[in-house]
């Protein structure tokens, strides 16, 4: 073994190593072979390129927002422009990055392989979902190029329907269409997980990554149609004035928020659950130990998905909903926080008695655990009715959901990308540089968003172009942090691109992980497996892996 004592990284001898002659990457050549592919791995790569593009567009908007907020005066851009910046930032990041991030890239790539099958149940639907994503994306980019949209990502009525002259319908159409891409992805996963598991791959032998995607897929399939209906109603209200949300026509403006949050709260779990799946895989692999309380973690994903549907009105505690419905929704919100706490403790105890190493994916996973704990606990602040009154609609809530979505999901996404990059491309990235990126991201993130909690408690409202001067110091800190964070995100883009050509050959199983995906060549064949594997061992069985490797050595020797 070439690995030193402090690492499990196990690369083949670089002088003799070579990439496999045939893999999904070089099976067919030419642009059309990519654009018309049915291969889940190629579609995952198409998605990865697309969401990276949208992430950096959304990130550029975030940068401009933070730059504007450097000073209390509205001096960098006009108010309308500022409103467009945060609206486009939200729409792009939520619908075109976070929702598809892990499921459409890593999930797409890995779920069939983890289940021991050759592709998803509906390869063409899978490709269609990527095209729908892009049609939605083009609508949104068109709205952007034509002058932007300033509704906020929440499209709140009656502002969006009666009071704005921007491209609301175009942007709403974009989100509407992208929603179908998410429904198709979810549908594909559910059918694949139910029907296409390899012989011996029982439900409780599935990796937790698959469990969390299963839970997220249920949310995608059941929740997204409600968003679609809501956006259609907004478009109809704007164009022909049907009056569902218009009080002067007997409509109810609050109804919009009920419908919108009925999707958009579960959407938060669509975004975070797949990330939790990544963390389970990474923490297990780098502590060489089965995930502590596998069943508890699996069921907590499902519990989150179920409870997630019944907490939407906690976004509306101050909006004049009845006090008693507020009570019920607050109680349910407290209950949904419990499965997340269970997961955090299970991951922590997975480390106990392990044999821990600290490769890049693990550093990102540690970052996730810290930031998600803060994000989750501050969610409890907001779920407590009386506290919510003071903290909602301020920077506290901005900081809270960025801790969950960016500190949680984006850290998990980067952890997953660094973990499976050698599998996807067959090459390693530079280890020390990637560790530096993980640490930079963590520091930058905290510097950006911790001051925002204080700002929120002090009362600074969200979506403010100008603010009272006493808030400046904390805003300056936040902007400084955003700069560091930006560097942290640029680094992986550079060294991962570099590694495509110059990275060390990774070999089949650089991390000595147990998943089925690590038992095949890197990058995999188009058909994944030469013969369909028969699974006769539990998930995360490191003793099975050790035996298998020993056997291989004796066979070859």
């Amino acid at each position, binding site marked *: 073994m070439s690995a030193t004592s402090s690492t499990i990284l196990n690369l083949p001898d670089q002088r003799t190593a070579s990439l496999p002659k045939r893999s999904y990457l070089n099976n067919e050549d030419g642009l059309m072979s990519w654009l018309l592919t049915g291969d889940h791995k190629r579609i995952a790569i198409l998605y990865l390129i697309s969401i990276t593009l949208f992430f950096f567009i959304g990130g550029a908007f975030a940068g401009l927002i933070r730059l504007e907020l450097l000073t209390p005066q509205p001096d960098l851009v006009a108010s309308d422009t500022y409103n467009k910046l945060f609206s486009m930032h939200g729409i792009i990041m939520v619908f075109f990055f976070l929702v598809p991030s892990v499921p459409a890239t890593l999930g797409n790539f890995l779920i069939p392989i983890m289940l021991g099958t050759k592709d998803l149940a509906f390869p063409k639907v899978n490709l269609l979902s990527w095209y729908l994503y892009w049609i939605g994306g083009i609508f949104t980019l068109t709205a952007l190029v034509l002058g932007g949209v300033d509704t906020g990502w929440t499209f*709140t009525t009656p502002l969006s329907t009666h009071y704005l002259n921007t491209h609301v319908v175009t942007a709403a159409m974009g989100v509407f269409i992208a929603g179908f891409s998410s429904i198709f992805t979810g549908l594909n996963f559910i059918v694949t997980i139910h029907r296409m598991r390899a012989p011996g791959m029982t439900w409780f032998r599935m990796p937790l990554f698959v469990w969390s995607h299963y839970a997220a897929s249920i949310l995608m399939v059941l929740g997204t149609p409600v968003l679609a209906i809501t956006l259609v109603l907004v478009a109809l209200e704007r164009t022909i004035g049907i009056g569902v949300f218009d009080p002067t026509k007997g409509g109810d403006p609050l109804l919009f928020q009920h419908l919108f949050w009925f999707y958009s709260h579960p959407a938060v779990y669509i975004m975070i659950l797949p990330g939790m799946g990544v963390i389970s895989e990474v923490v297990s692999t780098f502590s060489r130990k089965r995930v502590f309380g596998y069943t508890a973690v699996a069921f907590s994903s499902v519990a989150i998905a179920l409870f997630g549907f019944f907490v939407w009105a906690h976004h509306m505690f101050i*909006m004049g909903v009845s006090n008693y419905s507020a009570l019920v929704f607050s109680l349910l919100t407290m209950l949904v926080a419990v499965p997340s706490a269970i997961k955090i403790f299970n991951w922590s*105890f997975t480390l106990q008695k392990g044999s821990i190493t600290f490769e890049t994916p693990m550093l990102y996973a540690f970052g996730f655990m810290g930031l998600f704990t803060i994000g989750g606990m501050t969610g409890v602040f907001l779920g407590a009715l009386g506290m919510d*009154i003071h903290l909602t609609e301020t920077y506290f809530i901005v900081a809270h959901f960025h801790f969950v979505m960016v500190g949680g999901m984006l850290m998990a996404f980067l952890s997953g990308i660094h973990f499976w990059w050698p599998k996807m491309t067959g090459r390693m990235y530079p280890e020390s540089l990637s560790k530096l990126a993980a640490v930079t991201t963590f520091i930058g993130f905290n510097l950006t968003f911790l001051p925002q909690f204080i700002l929120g408690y002090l009362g600074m409202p969200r979506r403010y172009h100008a603010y009272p*001067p006493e808030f400046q110091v904390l805003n300056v800190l936040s902007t400084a942090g955003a700069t560091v964070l930006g560097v942290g995100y640029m680094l992986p883009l550079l060294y991962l691109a570099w590694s495509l050509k110059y990275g060390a050959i990774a070999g089949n199983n650089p991390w000595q992980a147990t998943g089925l995906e690590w038992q095949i060549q890197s990058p995999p064949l188009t058909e994944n497996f030469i013969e369909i594997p028969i699974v006769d061992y539990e998930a995360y069985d490191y003793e099975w892996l050790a035996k298998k490797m020993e056997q291989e050595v004796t066979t070859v020797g």
Partner: protein
Amino acid sequence: MHISQVLWQFLIKWLTASALFLREASTIAPYADALYFFLLTITVIGLVLVGTLVFGFSIRYRKERHPVAEQVEGSTLLEATWTIIPLALFLITFVWGAILYFRIYNPPTNAMNVYIVGKQWMWKAEHPGGQHEINALHVPTGRPVQLTMISQDVFHSFSIPDFRVKREVIPGRYSTVWFQATTPGTYHIFCTQYCGTNHSAMIGEVTVMNPDDYQKWTQQSTSGMSLAQNGERLFASMGCNSCHSGSATARGPNLAGVYASKLQLANGSQVLVNDAYLRDAILNPSEHITAGYAPIMPTYQGQISEDGLIDLVEYIKTLQSNYRVQQTLTTADSNQQAPTTPGAVKP
């Protein structure tokens, strides 16, 4: 300027200008802060716990010290521990939060009422005594103040961070919030619900004054006409008094004493007459027919501004007899006795 000077100024500014904690200027604020610090404490404890576990295990079980992992299959006892303890803490938070919520949103009965109308991008405050303010609100210390709020266009949200109160201001519906200010001074009013271009300019100041100063202020800044007086004028000019004249043969129900009474409707239900009911009955009369009357009242949707509606509501609130109604209608019959109200069940 030299860079160290910039940093020095930044440090000075940090130490002097930036607070970490907020003033407590209402009776609610200490209650809200108590919950805040409780939550902050359990967050820090939780974070330290997770941090200790992660770092502790990372040091104790790193590969150099612990080269071979021992496989451990979960533990029901531990699982139960970290299910039950967080659950218990969250339930305590739930109860505490709920108590605070009811404290903030249930006004005491003796609260003085001020109307707030939100519109893009300003706040109008209307005191019953006829003081009108824009992006400002004057209130006395030591007296509960209830705000009855409505929006003329989009959703707004009325927030006074130093009082720890906030409530959405909704188009087409009254919402209320109350507070009792404790410390004289000026405090921020923010609109916290995104409402379009100048959202961040929809700010104002609430001025808290000693009761004596407040008394002086009300006398100096009155417009000379109370809201009810404005309402009375509107009542006459819109022609309301031709049906709601209070006489036995009138086509509309008598409005004297109707506020805060229980009213029998034509569809058999009973309603409590409050601000929201009165406003709705003016705008959508066909949905609120008093028992014994024909549905002949036209809708006033789009004909009266929210301010006008507030004036009318205030007028009807103060209407104890129909003497003035009839006097404005026919000066000759102005000395008639007001008849009793049919359909109004006295509470």
